[in-house]
C-alpha cells in the first residue's frame, strides 16, 4: 500500500457567495499523492476559490474535500496539513526572512534555538542563507517567492497550495523560478496544487492539468494529453497550438468523416469513437506544427487533408516562423513552419499556398 496522505479528492464541490450563482459548480476530481497539479483557466473561472477551499480559507457551500482520505471541511487551515503560498506572497513586512520562515514554528510554541535550527535548514534549501536577516521589503521578487515557499514548506505539509505564484515576476525570472518550483516539489515529495492562467506554466510544470471554465472542469489529465488531445474547442483554444475550425458533416465513410463545404472538401477527419450523422456541425482541431505548406502544384501525399489559402501574415518567432492563412472563413488558421524549412523557400504576404497534413492528425472535438 502506497502512502496516500497527500492525495486529494473533491466530491461535488460547490461554492456560492450570494446563494444564487455558483462560482464553483459540482467539481469532482482526484489528485494523486505527490502529484504536481495545475488548475488552469481565465480569471474568474473558480480555480482560486477551489484552492482557498482546500486551504480552509473559504467554506464550501456543498460537497466534500478529502485529504489523505479524511474529510477536512470545517477544519481550521492549520489542522488540514496544507500550507498555502499566497499570490504576491503575503510575507510579514515587519519580520526578517528567518522570522517569517520560523513563524509557523513560533506559534506552535517552539523555542527560539529549536525553531531557528529548523528554519535555517529550510533557508539553506531555498539558498537564502546570506539574506536571512533581511526584511521582505529589501528582497527582489524572486527572493520573496523563495521565502514564501520556504515559509509554507517549513510546516511539513502534505499538500502545498500555490496561488498564481509566478504572476508577480518578470518573464525571465518566471521561467527560472518555474524550474525551482519543480525542483522543490521533487525534494519535498508532497502534493503541489498550483493555480495559474498561463498554459505555458501549466504544461511546463504539471503532472496533471485541470482546465476550468465558469466553475466547471472542462478537462483533466496529464499535460501532454490535454495539450495534444483537447476534448473540446474551449480547451483547444485555451491551451493554444491548435487550429480549430467548424464545418458540417457531408458524409461518414467507414471510420472517416468528409466535410461538405467547398473550402473544406479535401479535409478528412477520423471518426474515432464519436457518433455523428450527415448534416451535424462539428469542430475539428489540427496542431499548428503538424501542417506543411506547399506551393500550388507541388505533389501532396496520398490521403492527406489539404486547404487552399493565401498568406495573410508572417511572424518570425526565432526557432520557427508563424504563418497566418485565410484558409477557413471565420476561424484563425496558423501554421508553425520550422525556421530552416521556411527560409529554404520564404513565403510572403499574398502568396497562394496549400496547407496539408496527414489525415489522421485531425481531431474531432466534442
Amino acid at each position, binding site marked *: 500500500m502506497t502512502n496516500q496522505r497527500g492525495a486529494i479528492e473533491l466530491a461535488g464541490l460547490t461554492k456560492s457567495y450570494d446563494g444564487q450563482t455558483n462560482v464553483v459548480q459540482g467539481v469532482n476530481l482526484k489528485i494523486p499523492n505527490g502529484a504536481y497539479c495545475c488548475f488552469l483557466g481565465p480569471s474568474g473561472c473558480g480555480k482560486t476559490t477551489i484552492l482557498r477551499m482546500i486551504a480552509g480559507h473559504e467554506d464550501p457551500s456543498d460537497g466534500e474535500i478529502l485529504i489523505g482520505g479524511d474529510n477536512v471541511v470545517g477544519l481550521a487551515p492549520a489542522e488540514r496539513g496544507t500550507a498555502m503560498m*499566497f499570490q504576491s506572497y503575503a510575507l510579514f513586512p515587519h519580520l526578517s526572512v528567518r522570522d517569517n520562515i520560523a513563524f509557523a514554528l513560533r506559534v506552535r510554541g517552539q523555542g527560539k534555538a529549536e525553531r531557528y535550527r529548523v528554519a535555517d535548514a529550510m533557508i539553506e534549501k531555498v539558498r537564502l542563507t546570506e539574506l536571512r536577516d533581511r526584511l521582505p521589503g529589501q528582497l527582489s521578487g524572486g527572493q520573496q517567492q523563495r521565502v514564501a515557499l520556504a515559509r509554507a514548506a517549513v510546516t511539513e505539509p502534505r499538500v502545498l497550495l500555490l496561488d498564481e505564484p509566478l504572476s508577480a515576476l518578470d518573464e525571465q525570472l518566471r521561467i527560472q523560478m518555474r524550474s525551482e518550483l519543480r525542483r522543490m516539489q521533487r525534494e519535498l515529495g508532497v502534493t503541489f496544487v498550483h493555480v495559474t492562467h498561463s498554459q505555458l506554466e501549466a504544461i511546463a510544470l504539471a503532472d496533471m492539468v485541470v482546465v476550468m471554465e465558469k466553475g466547471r472542469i472542462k478537462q483533466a489529465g496529464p499535460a501532454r494529453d490535454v495539450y495534444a488531445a483537447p476534448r473540446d474547442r474551449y480547451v483547444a483554444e485555451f491551451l493554444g497550438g491548435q487550429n480549430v475550425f467548424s464545418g458540417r458533416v457531408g458524409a461518414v465513410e467507414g471510420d472517416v468523416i468528409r466535410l461538405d463545404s467547398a473550402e473544406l472538401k479535401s479535409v478528412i477527419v477520423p471518426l474515432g469513437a464519436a457518433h455523428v450523422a450527415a448534416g451535424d456541425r462539428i469542430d475539428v482541431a489540427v496542431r499548428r506544427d503538424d501542417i506543411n505548406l506547399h506551393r500550388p502544384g507541388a505533389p501532396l501525399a496520398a490521403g492527406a487533408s489539404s486547404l487552399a489559402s493565401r498568406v495573410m501574415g508572417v511572424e518570425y518567432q526565432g526557432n520557427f516562423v508563424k504563418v497566418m492563412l485565410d484558409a477557413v472563413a471565420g476561424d484563425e488558421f496558423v501554421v508553425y513552419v520550422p525556421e530552416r524549412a521556411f527560409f529554404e523557400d520564404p513565403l510572403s504576404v499574398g502568396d497562394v499556398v496549400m496547407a496539408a497534413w496527414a489525415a489522421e492528425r485531425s481531431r474531432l472535438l466534442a
Partner: protein
Amino acid sequence: MSAAPDALSPAKTGARRRALAPSKGRRPWTFYVLAAIFTFYVVALYGPMFCIYVLSFQDLRGGLVFPMKGLSLHWFVDLFTQARTGDVAGAFDRSIKLAILVTVITVVVSLMSALAFRRRFPGDTIVFALMIGSLVAPGLVLGIGVGLMFNALGLPTTWWGSALGAQLSWTLPFGVLVMFAVMSRFDSAWEEAARDLGASRWQTLRLVIVPVLAPGLVAVALFGFTLSYDEFARTLQTAGPQNTLPLEIWSMTLNVTSPALYALGTVTTIISFLIIGASLGAIVWIQKRRGRRASST
C-alpha cells in the same frame, strides 16, 4: 534623470508649462500666489500662539497686551500658588490621568472596531451611522444628556466615570476613522497567511496585526490623548465637582485677567509638544528598530 530629454523637446516643454503640476521648468504664476497664501496661513496659525508664549514671561507689571514689561517667571509661579486661579495643579493631574485612560481605551476599541468593519456584517450600517452621529452630536447637549442620565440613575458625575464615557463617545469615532485610514494599507492576506501557518486569532493579532499597524496605532493614541486632554464641551456637565484642565482654563478666561492665563497656555502647550514629540519619536523608533534588526547579520 529625465530632465535633459524633456528640456530638449519644445513641444513637451510647452505642455509642461501648461501643466497644473509642472515637475520641472518655470513655475506658473499660481505657484507664487498659492505660496503666499500658504505662508500667510502658517504665520496666522503660529503667530498668535507665539505672542502669548512671549507675553507669559513678563514680570509683575505686565498686562494682557504688548509691549512686554520685563522678563520673569512671575506668572508661572502665580499660576500654581494663587488660590484665585483655582486648583490648577490638581486639574493638570486629573486631565493627564483621564487622557491616558481615554488613550488606552481608544486605541484598543478603535483597532477592534476597524477590524470588524473590514467585512460586512448584519447591523454594520447601523453601528456606522451611530458612530457618525456620536461624532457630530453637539458636545454640550450630549454632556448634559449624560449628566441628566446620571442624575436620574442616582449616580454621581465624576471625571473618571461620566466624563470618561462622554469623552469616549467623541474620541472613539475619531479613532475608528483614523484606524480606517491606517488599515487601508493592511493586506488581509497577512492575516490569512498567519492563520494558514497555524496562528490562533490571538497570536495573529499579537504577532502580525499589531506589529504591522504599530505606527498607525501610535497615531491613534496621539489623537485619543489630544482630543481628551483638550476636551471641553462634553466634559463641562459630566466632570462632577473636580475640574479637568480645559474647564480650569475656561473659568480662568472668564475670571482671570492677568498673564497667568497665558502662562497656563504656555504650560499646556509644552505638555502637548512633549506628547507630540514622544509620539513621533515612538514611530521613528519602531521604524528604526525594524531597519536595524533587519540589517544586523
